[in-house]
């Protein structure tokens, strides 16, 4: 598991799982399975579907999500918006098979300092990052360090 610190406003977590992508996909997209490791939810892995993750204090309450991309066994991306619009971020799950039959899972959580999404789903899906924002964050973080 690695955590890329190079991009200060993006969280990247990677891991290798023993199970194949088909099985990991189920754990990411079936409500009961997803609830067992993430949060209670009503996910349907179809682009445009809105669902809710019932978060607790850890996540600042309920997370509103919209599926932005769903390619079975490969890619799942949804918006991750904290209750009352506090956070407006995007989470991407990338799955790839490993030679030993397992799955390499890469989770990218970004958009911590971007504009509200409102109707710009396509743009976000194509270009999830906006360089100026990253520069801002890095400038600020350098000062904060």
């Amino acid at each position, binding site marked *: *598991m690695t*955590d890329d610190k190079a991009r*200060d*406003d993006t*969280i990247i*977590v990677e*891991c290798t*799982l*023993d*199970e194949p992508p088909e*099985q*990991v996909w*189920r*754990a990411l997209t079936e409500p009961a*399975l997803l609830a*067992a*490791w*993430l949060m209670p939810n009503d996910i349907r892995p179809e682009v445009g579907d809105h669902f809710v993750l019932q978060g607790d204090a*850890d*996540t*600042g309450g309920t997370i509103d999500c919209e599926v932005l991309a769903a390619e079975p066994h490969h890619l799942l991306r949804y918006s991750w918006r904290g209750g*009352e*619009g*506090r*956070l*407006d971020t995007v989470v991407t799950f990338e799955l790839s098979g490993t030679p030993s039959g397992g799955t390499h*899972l890469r*989770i990218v*959580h970004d958009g*911590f*300092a*971007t*504009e*509200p999404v409102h109707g710009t789903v396509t743009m976000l899906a194509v270009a999830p990052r906006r360089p*100026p*924002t990253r*520069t*801002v*964050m890095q*400038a*600020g*973080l*350098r*000062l*904060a360090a």
Partner: protein
Amino acid sequence: MVETEIFRALADPTRRAIFERLARREMSVSELKAGFDVSQPAISQHLAALRGVGLVAERREGKFAYYRVDPKGLAPLVNWIDRYRTFWPARIDKLKDVLKGMGK
């Protein structure tokens, strides 16, 4: 919540650019205006918004005012990111348990 306001303040491209310039060095309003195609009152308004959420600090010297980035301002945002930095690895551990429990 403070984070919302910070997100909102930085959502405006001009404001973001102002913040970025001030991150490099302290400037007066007229110095800042030199780089932008906006009026001085507009710059002042953006500065007020940035100061309002604690991203920018003002220093007065006689009748002149100088602005710089307040390093503490981004802290609430950094806290959110830090929270999720530990959140995801912890959830992956749970995911591994769930996968084991599913059988093949």
